[in-house]
């Protein structure tokens, strides 16, 4: 007599340990989602639609934006909110579909590490960015127009 394999992990309630973050994760997705709609729609409009659209983007364009604290804060917020929002979404999907406990842990670990690394990297870039770095002569033309002559 053969049996069809059970469709997914058997029903056995695992014991809860520590704080239950699920409720807060659910709240975060909605709260950050609303803010992100504003931030990303603004980001897309300024970078992709207004002026020349994507053709206008180069080093001088980014330097011009980040010379203002307004866009620094805007992009910093977008970086943190979007990466945590995305990483939490990926965590949810992994929880839904990974049948193996080990594989689930590995994948969640990978998502967490990549998100954490990129948050650190992105934050450092925004705060240590110099719109007028000292560059080789052939790159001088790439600097924004407000830079002092080198």
């Amino acid at each position, binding site marked *: 007599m053969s049996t069809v394999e059970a469709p997914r992990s058997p029903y056995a309630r695992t014991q809860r340990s520590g704080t239950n973050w699920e409720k807060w994760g659910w709240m975060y997705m*909605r709260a950050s989602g609303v803010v992100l709609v504003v931030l990303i729609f603004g980001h897309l409009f300024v970078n992709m639609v207004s002026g020349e*659209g994507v053709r206008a983007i180069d080093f001088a364009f*980014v330097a011009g934006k980040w010379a203002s604290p307004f866009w620094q804060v805007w992009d910093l917020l977008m970086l943190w909110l979007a*990466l945590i929002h995305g990483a939490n979404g990926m965590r949810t999907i992994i929880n839904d579909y990974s049948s193996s406990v080990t594989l689930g842990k590995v994948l969640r670990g990978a998502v967490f590490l990549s998100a954490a690394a990129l948050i650190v*990297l992105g934050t450092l*870039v925004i705060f240590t960015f110099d719109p007028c770095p000292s560059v080789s002569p052939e790159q001088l033309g790439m600097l924004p127009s407000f830079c002092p002559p080198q």
Partner: protein
Amino acid sequence: MSAVTAPRSQNKPRPGGTLYRGYTGMWSWVLHRITGVAIFFFLLVHILDTALVRVSPEAYNAVISTYKTPLMGLGEIGLVGAILFHALNGLRIILVDFWSKGVKYQRTMFWIVIGLWVVLMAGFLPRQIANIILEVNGQ
């Protein structure tokens, strides 16, 4: 009594189970997941390419110029489409969760999401298509 004989279908039975025939609620969820995963992976790449501004203006400009090729231009249309759907459908989900009439109007709200998506894409496409054409012409 009248007898009607159903014509035999040539369709082969599907090998696995049938696909669940959910309504707009299920398919909007499927789209929400797919667009969400796609946006997440783009976000990882996008932060890395933007981080090149710390390396040198030359490196950043070289990578960002690949974003301006016609092929990437088409990809950007897909990306913007995915982001717009994810954002608008996300707002619909929030209304379903927090607005007392959200559940009742969820299907109507889905079609509003599709409508707004079409309007916003219509706002974005002229600029993007113009850019793609300029790139194709090498200007």
